[in-house]
């Protein structure tokens, strides 16, 4: 089977190039990662990330024939030849198929992807109703492979400001969590013009997600919640103003 693989070693190469490999596969080679391991046996200078080999760790995400995906769960029989492999777009290349995901994780961390609950921790776990728990389905499964964010044009053009689909999916995962107490702060955290609203529903994220998740829908729901939250804040603010005016006038009357 023929492969054309992006090669770049910044210590040696002035610019990246594509290298062809023709390899004989064996019956046990079912997935793209199997073939890549076989190539690496022949040429150990090829760099790539891999770990669990079953679509759980998200390490071996790469651009496969123009579309981001995980090598370990991509069937060789589904691929056209030559199989063109490149690093995920939009992030700096460290070497060959390995990209620097610092930016990606900075955005991920910026949404505070952990439960914020200031109540006294219970002796056992914090309980949820089955209905509330069901709201997390389609959100918690994200493996942070980066396939969605690096296929998003809004992220390509605004990598420093746009949180990206993976980060926003995680933001929504904690916004809808019934045990979380920081919903307001989380919504406020996404108010800057480019953090959330750079998403224009291109939906590449939905197209490429190896876990079949829907970041685009999560982003739309955050936008809806932001309107509801802002309307609520406005009404509450008006009410508080009215109450304080009333109190002032009552105080004056008393005086």
């Amino acid at each position, binding site marked *: 089977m023929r492969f054309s693989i992006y090669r770049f070693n910044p210590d040696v190469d002035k610019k990246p190039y594509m290298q062809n490999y023709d390899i004989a596969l064996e019956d046990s080679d079912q997935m793209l990662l199997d073939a890549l391991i076989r190539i690496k046996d022949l040429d150990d200078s090829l760099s790539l990330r891999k770990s669990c080999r079953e679509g759980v760790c998200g390490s071996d995400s790469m651009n496969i024939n123009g579309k981001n995906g995980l090598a370990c769960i991509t069937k060789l029989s589904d691929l056209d030849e030559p199989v063109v492999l490149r690093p995920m777009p939009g992030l700096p290349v460290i070497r060959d198929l390995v990209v620097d995901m610092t930016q990606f994780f900075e955005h991920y961390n910026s949404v505070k992807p952990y439960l914020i609950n200031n109540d006294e921790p219970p002796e056992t776990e914090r309980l949820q109703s089955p209905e509330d728990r069901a709201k997390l389905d389609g959100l918690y499964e994200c493996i942070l492979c980066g396939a969605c964010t690096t296929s998003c044009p809004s992220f390509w053009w605004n990598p420093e400001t746009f949180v990206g689909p993976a980060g926003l999916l995680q933001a929504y995962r904690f916004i809808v969590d019934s045990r979380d107490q920081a919903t307001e702060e989380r919504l406020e955290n996404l108010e800057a013009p480019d953090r959330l609203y*750079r998403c224009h529903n291109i939906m590449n994220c939905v197209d490429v997600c190896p876990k079949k998740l829907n970041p685009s829908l999560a982003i739309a729901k955050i936008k809806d919640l932001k*309107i509801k939250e802002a309307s609520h804040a406005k009404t509450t603010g008006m009410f508080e103003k009215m109450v304080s005016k009333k109190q002032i006038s009552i105080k004056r009357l008393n005086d």
Partner: protein
Amino acid sequence: MVIELLTKRYPGMRAWLMQRLTALVMAIYSVMALGRILLEQPSDYEAWLSFSQPWWWRVASLLFWISLSIHAWLGIRDVFKDYVPNASVRGLLLKLLVVMLWVYLAWATWLFLAYAGSADLVLR
């Protein structure tokens, strides 16, 4: 209530919501225009003139144009932000866009409010 959300307190939401509200105005106007054209079927210049004469239609048309200008500003600004990385070129393009939209808006205002009202006079 929605208008109150279009304040500086919500810079991200303001642009996003504004684009959707203006789109809604344009969609309603487009349906109305299509409905009127199908119902009245203006066939000649005079018919088109009388089509555009009612004051409420001219106000609606002006609203449509204002919405179009705001919608175009927000949309094209985003496109420039993505695809014109050079800040000074982008600044220049944005200035040109503003001038163009204001000129079109002034022209449209004149057409809908001043000219359309006296079009029959101009004809004679």
